[in-house]
């Protein structure tokens, strides 16, 4: 009935270690995959920070962007309303493709062994 699921009444779900059984080096590989995924996520975060995170301080330091108008609206407002949403989508799309590729190469690695 509840969205919180029945797992409270049962032992927490115990993950299997077939991977470790299947390959002697499974754990090492998995740690490498995790580190590679984390590095990818952090680089995407850095891109996000460089493109978006600097905007508030840039607008603060460059009040000229409030005075210059484009089609009657200050440039600073255009920057806030229009280009950032597609940028988030773009970063997300690039990230998801790379992350899938990392997963896929991990699968290849495990299957080959």
């Amino acid at each position, binding site marked *: 009935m*509840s969205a*919180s699921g029945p797992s409270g009444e049962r032992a927490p779900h115990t993950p299997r*270690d077939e991977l470790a059984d299947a390959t002697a080096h499974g754990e090492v590989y998995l740690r490498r*995959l995790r580190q590679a995924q984390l590095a990818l996520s952090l680089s995407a975060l850095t891109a996000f920070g460089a493109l978006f995170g600097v905007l508030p301080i840039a607008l603060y330091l460059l009040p000229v962007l409030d005075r210059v108008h484009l089609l009657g609206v200050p440039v600073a407002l255009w920057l*806030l309303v229009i280009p950032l949403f597609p940028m988030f989508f773009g970063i997300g799309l690039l990230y*998801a493709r790379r992350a899938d590729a990392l997963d896929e190469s991990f699968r290849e690695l495990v299957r080959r062994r």
Partner: protein
Amino acid sequence: MIAILAVAGVTFGTVGLGAWGVRFARTTSDLLVASRAVTPWWNAAAISGEYLSAASFLGIAGLEMKLGAGALWQPLGFTAGYLALLLFVAAPLRRFGSYTIPDFVQARLRSTRLRSLASAIVLLIGVFYLVPQLKGAGITLGFVTGAPYWVGVTLVGAVVAVNVGLGGMRGITYVQAFQFWLKVFAISVPACILLVHLGGLPGRATLFGGELPHAGAHGLVVHLDSAQRVEFPARTRYLLNGTAHMARAGESMTLPAGRLALGPGAAVPVAEGTHALRGARWARPVAGSGTSSPLFVYSLLLATFLGTMGLPHILVRFYTNPDGRAARHTTVRVLGLLGMFYAFPSVYGALGRVLTPQLYLTGATDTVVLQVPQAAWPGTVGELLGATLAAGAFAAFLSTSSGLLISIAGTLSHDVWPSIDGAHPTTVSIRRRRFRVAAGAGMVLPVVLALGAQGIDIGVLVGWAFVIAASTFCPMFLLGIWWTGLTARGASWGMLSGALVATAGILLDLTLGEAQGPAGALLAQPAIVSVPIAFAVMIAGSLSSREHPDFGPEMLALHAPEGLGLAQREQAHAELTPGAVA
């Protein structure tokens, strides 16, 4: 009249579709099969539909009108939150197979005591987030029918509680997806039609120049229902119940109830707590002080960026994705869909500054989205557009508050109740009855709080929920997923200290009123302090733990891609599906 029909249509349509749809998703396998058939686009629309709340539909434009363009950082943060979720949480969480935050906490950290703490925080965030939804319902129903504020709050609270209790809206991906498109239609089409009708943004001097919000060419008449404390930003002549008065610039006074008339172009007096800003200052996204200061903006962005992943009603929906890869691609689409919606609320805030300046006087800027159409285009067209917006706003309250109440009721019936009577219910019928009681009980406190919160902006109320989520669950997720060293002790210390610092800031801000300077900004938006504290305490607590269990199996479950023959995982998911206990 049209608006009443539109609102009633949305409400009954949602309740009806939910009740009808739930027949088809009763069993676990039905739900699983259905979820396999749901494409990432449908899923993404459903997630976005549940996410776009009163804060998005009414709150952003209201805050923008009141405080200026600095409010437009909020939708950016609301959207960017899904980027954080995508980069660090979406795929591992889907693979792990816990459906709620308490489930995840218990399974990852192997602690039932921590589960109780997580449940308490879920309730805290859920209530904080539910209150502004009910406030939105109260003011919208009041606008549409003229009913008093409390009628809308209690009515929508009751409808949602009954609907959730009877099982409507649960797991119904298509209903939520439909609500998303309804909301996008309702916010975008009137905005475009009004902009074309007005020939672009009107009153540029008011919007971006040196002018204060002022009465239009025909003057302004406002009926005050009750006495109102106001400040006159400029020397203004006004008529009160037919008698002429003159106010000095900067004069504060209490206007009695009655009919206030201002001449053409007269600067509008503003309600206490609102600052009358000249256009150029109003249009600055970042300014030297107050709610547009860089410190405040960064703190707000941090709260929304990191808080989204910790909202209790968001997580469940990710399990309609068949695997981790689909979870990623669904989240990318959510980023696109939300961006589409969030381009529009800013239009209403700007139009409202010019067309409905009386809202500065009454302080009811949260209704600006609903008021603008009839002010811009009096007559049938304006009424029709206003009805569209009211319907969209209602869709927003219904979907978000249903999702929140499901989380609250689930936690109450599942975690709180057994801890009181000491026994877990064994039969499905007892669980179902408990969930129904919990859905009713869980709505009481939010309704009571919402009745007292009429004077607080929706955007501000929602902001608090994000701060608490960012200071508690976000560090727990990020460290729990990516760091094997996180222990139960570290997580509980960190979540407790994050919750304490965040709530202390909010409560101080409420009691002290409007504090000035950087300290005031930090109290109103404490994330930039509380989030680092939560992270630091969580790491320190983990490192100082006496026991360091090997969390290898949990890491495997979180990070191993599908398709490696880990067949049992699929079964575990089937057992854990919420529909299994329906």
